[in-house]
């Protein structure tokens, strides 16, 4: 079933738009389509959840009435002048809001204003240059200090690793020596046992040979 064809109708019905025709189409489709029936129910529930997102208190002040609305315009204009003041001042533009409305004048004003703005620009530029110089001077020092600290940390780490490796080697060597001595002792003991066993066997053979020789002579 082509459920996508009913999607726009479904949204219309969900938000109360589309009229009776759309509502009928959706209803007919949903009679035979459990998926769309479920989706519509889920969307309705979702809308219920979304409704919990309210605006914070104090965001919206009560609307002004009558003459009280005029101060909004003045406040808005003041806010705008403050917000745009820097950029407009640099471009030499002038914004006014008075009972006759907004007025924007582009270009520099009187010579005095211009001199004032130029002086302000120069002052800002000097401050920016001073900050840049400070930053440039401070950065290498900080970076050098950082590099030294990192190098020290690496050296300390290497020293620690070396000491640990040496200790491990010493321990290994000691264990190896002990094992070698133990093995040698066992080999030696084994050889002695074999020597002893061979000697006893030789004695017995010699004795047996003696008996045989004696018996043959008696015959």
């Amino acid at each position: 079933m082509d459920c996508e064809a009913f999607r726009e109708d479904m949204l219309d019905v969900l938000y109360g738009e589309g009229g009776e025709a759309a509502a009928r189409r959706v209803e007919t489709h949903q009679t035979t389509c459990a998926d769309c029936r479920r989706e519509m129910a889920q969307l309705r529930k979702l809308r219920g959840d979304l409704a919990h997102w309210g605006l914070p208190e104090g965001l919206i002040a009560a609307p002004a009435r009558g003459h009280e609305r005029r101060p909004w315009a003045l406040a808005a204009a003041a806010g705008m002048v403050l917000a745009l003041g820097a950029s407009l001042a640099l471009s030499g533009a002038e914004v006014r809001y008075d009972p006759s409305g907004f007025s924007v004048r582009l270009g520099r004003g009187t010579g005095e204003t211009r001199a004032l703005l130029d002086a302000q620009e120069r002052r800002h530029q000097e401050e920016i240059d001073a900050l840049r110089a400070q930053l440039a001077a401070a950065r290498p020092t900080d970076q050098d200090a950082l590099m030294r600290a990192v190098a020290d940390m690496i050296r300390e780490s290497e020293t620690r690793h070396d000491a640990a490796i040496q200790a491990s080697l010493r321990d290994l060597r000691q264990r190896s020596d002990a094992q070698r001595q133990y093995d040698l002792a066992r080999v030696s003991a084994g050889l002695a046992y074999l020597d002893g066993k061979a000697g006893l066997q030789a004695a017995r053979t010699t004795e047996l040979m003696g008996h045989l020789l004696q018996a043959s002579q008696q015959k």
Partner: protein
Amino acid sequence: MSPSDEELVAAFQAGDVAAFDTLVGRWDRKIRGVIFRLVGSHEEARDVSQETFLKAYRALGTFKKEARFSSWLYQIAVNATRDRLRRRRRRTDLSLEDVDESAESALRDASPSAFELMESGDLSRLVAAAMAALPEEQREVVILKEYQGLTFPEIADALDVPLSTVKTRLYRGLGQLRVRLERQGVRGAAAVAVPSA
């Protein structure tokens, strides 16, 4: 009977500056509300709202009578909001370079978990967070539809997109919200009893 928006615009264009005040009084709450939902900040909402009305004031003289004032105003508000969010993203991209891991982890720790929010019954914050995670285009449509109550054609006018695009963005946005809220444990969409045919 109070004059319509279009009548007030005509009065303003004829030289009645006070007509603009009436329009502001009529639309300030709604415009500030939609901007707040889009930017998520009280201060920025106030700034962008003032910016919106200032732009409207400047352009109202050339407003065409066949257009609908509310859609035109929403269009200015949405564009101003987009500019603000773009600037904010640029600032965030720069400042993120300076954020170290411990600071990020501190930020994560400071945010209440979804469970805590659910525990405190603060569904509002969960919805706000899910909304903030939506792509900008979908968020705009959902907010204009769900919280401003604009009709589909009004949203299409305000955003300057075809009607079908509005519905597609809305459908996708609602779908994403549903998934995100389900993941957060909101007992919404997934637990709905399906009515029988």
